[in-house]
């Protein structure tokens, strides 16, 4: 009688224990699934972080500095009409406010063929999460048609050739948002365009002068306005910096999000830093 009672107690305890373990297991599964988030999201986060990492140079440059310069010179006349004359005129107009160089949006000549879609693609490839296959050098090699509208894109590709970066494997970097990565990639490409036009006479070189100009762009990459946020104190220096920005415009058409941010808040370009 006693042993039968004990058997029942053991069975009951076993069932309770089994039930408790099952409950614990279920809880663990549910907590993992709902509270800690789906596993796909975690891997996605890792991918985004990975895409922000740029590491090794993967090839020696094919072209010399001199060749790239020559190509840039040749490519420049390809888009003379890409620099709207109205921009320059409007930019020099407001004499009352020399510190703010406003360009009326209505004055801008926005032509679809001047959007430099190829360069935009290049920027997109920067911000995309997967690094595209390296173009073969033959494909990137310029032809006699380098002075066509695609000249700048070809040159930018060539500059990247040999200095190309690839997504890294180390989980480092602080860019966690796709949008900020795209914005960052866009604005980081801007100095390349401006630097070609950034020239100073010898007496202004090595003077440790610095000015900072806020640049507002519209959805087409055209200048909305420029604003000197920090003057060098030397008018010629500031005006040379402004001229470099105007000569570099229009910039590649940004994506919608980046465009909105640039039109609303602008971006500060530092001359030289």
């Amino acid at each position: 009688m006693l042993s039968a009672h004990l058997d029942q107690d053991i069975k009951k305890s076993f069932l309770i224990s089994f039930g408790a373990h099952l409950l614990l297991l279920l809880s663990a599964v549910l907590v993992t699934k709902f509270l800690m988030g789906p596993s796909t999201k975690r891997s996605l986060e890792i991918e985004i972080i990975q895409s922000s990492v740029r590491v090794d140079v993967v090839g020696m440059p094919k072209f010399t500095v001199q060749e790239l310069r020559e190509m840039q010179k040749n490519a420049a006349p390809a888009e003379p009409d890409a620099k709207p004359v109205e921009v320059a005129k409007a930019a020099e107009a407001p004499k009352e406010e020399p510190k703010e160089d406003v360009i009326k949006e209505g004055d801008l000549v926005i032509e679809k063929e001047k959007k430099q879609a190829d360069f935009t693609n290049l920027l997109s490839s920067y911000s995309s999460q997967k690094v595209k296959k390296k173009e073969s050098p033959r494909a990137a090699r310029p032809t006699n048609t380098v002075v066509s509208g695609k000249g700048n894109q070809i040159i930018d590709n060539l500059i990247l050739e040999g200095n190309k970066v690839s997504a890294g494997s180390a989980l480092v970097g602080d860019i966690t948002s796709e949008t900020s990565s795209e914005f960052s990639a866009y604005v980081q490409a801007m100095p390349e365009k401006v630097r070609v036009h950034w020239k100073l006479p010898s007496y202004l070189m090595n003077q440790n002068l610095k000015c900072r100009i806020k640049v507002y762009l519209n959805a087409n990459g055209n200048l909305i306005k420029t604003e000197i946020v920090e003057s060098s104190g030397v008018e010629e220096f500031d005006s040379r910096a402004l001229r470099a920005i105007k000569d570099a415009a229009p910039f590649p058409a940004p994506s919608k999000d980046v465009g909105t941010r640039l039109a609303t808040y602008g971006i500060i370009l530092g001359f030289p830093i």
Partner: protein
Amino acid sequence: MKYIISLFVLIFSLHSFSQEAVIAVGEAEQEKDKLVIDSSETHNLSNTQKVLANELLDILRNNFIFYKHKFNTVLYNKTAKSYTTENLAKWKEDGIQYFVASSITSTTQGIEARFRLWNVREGKVILNESVTVSNTDLRPKAHDISDKLYRAMTGKPSIFKSKIVFISDRTTKSRDIEKELYIMDFDGRRVEKLTTFNSIVLSPSISPDNTKILFSVIEDKAALSSRNKKKMIKNINLKMYDLLTKKMTTISSKPGLNSGATYSRDPNIIYLTLTQSGNADIYEMNLTTTRMRKVTSHFAEDVDPSITQDGSMMTFLSNRAGRAHIYTMDPSQTEKDVKRISFVGKFNATPRFSPDGKEIVFSSWVDNGFDLYKIGANGQNLVRLTKDFGSNEDPVFSPDGEFIVFTSKRVINSRKAVQDLYIMNREGEVLGQLTQNFGKCFSPQFTNILD
């Protein structure tokens, strides 16, 4: 309450403003200054003196053509010979930034030349200098006045007074190759032979005060064979040549390699490659005490050190990653802050720092020959400098950082090749050939700017 909210908004706005990102455009490219070195006012000169005067002006003009990335040196014949301020408007109108007006008079030994350098924009004479010149000292005097003109215009020293030490095999007569040490002006003129070892001289380096040259030489050394018999073996010894006393001293003759020595900013401290521990490592050596300190300590081969002018960083070549790649480190301690700089290239060689320590120029094997490349000391901004210009090696920056001198080899046929020294600006624009019909030239090194 309203004020507190306003204050909060203001502080927040200021904070937001201070957080705004700035994208650096970088340093501007310098526009060229139009420079005129005018034909001189001459006073009662003989024909010989007129020739000397013309040669002097030609050297000045030729010197400034080296800096053609900074100056557009032009001939000008519109000026009234009085050189008054009345000319300024005309010069300005013609886009001239600097005008060198010269006046030459006769002396018993040769000529006296007075140069007045006008800063046209500022409308004033910024240098007024005279120099007596004879046939024997024409070139050094011309380089000296060129340097003064350059300094007045740029505020910086030029390379006009610099010399280049290099090695040539021109004295090779038989199968035994001979390489000796030579020194010449920056423009390849006035070449002088420094050594007569009838052997092979390697890797020269010039002391910070330009008085001594370190180099290695292959010499016979007595050694014991396995049967305890005396025999002569070849050893690469480190020597020092004093340019003032013309004396030669042996610095290191340890068994094996004593080579690739380079001076630090302290004339008593040198860095060299030794193989005494079995593989090549870089050591620091005190020339006074001969005390050695290991700078690199790795099972791989570490060779070819180059030190920044402030001595804070060293670049060297190492195969610790499998292939010969460029590394930087802090040479103050062993293996301190070693950082790999190059990640590509089949075989990289001779990394050399720019004087400001911001760039490294090196050669890399590409398509059956070497070409020159430049990379930032932080490993960024790799650019190519030469292409389709023979096989280019041994690059070295000029002491002002504006030029790179290098060797370029052309294969004539299966038995013959020429190798000369060339000079290019830092952007890879080749300016000219410095040596010609002078055997094969190697390992150029610039003297330092002293003042």
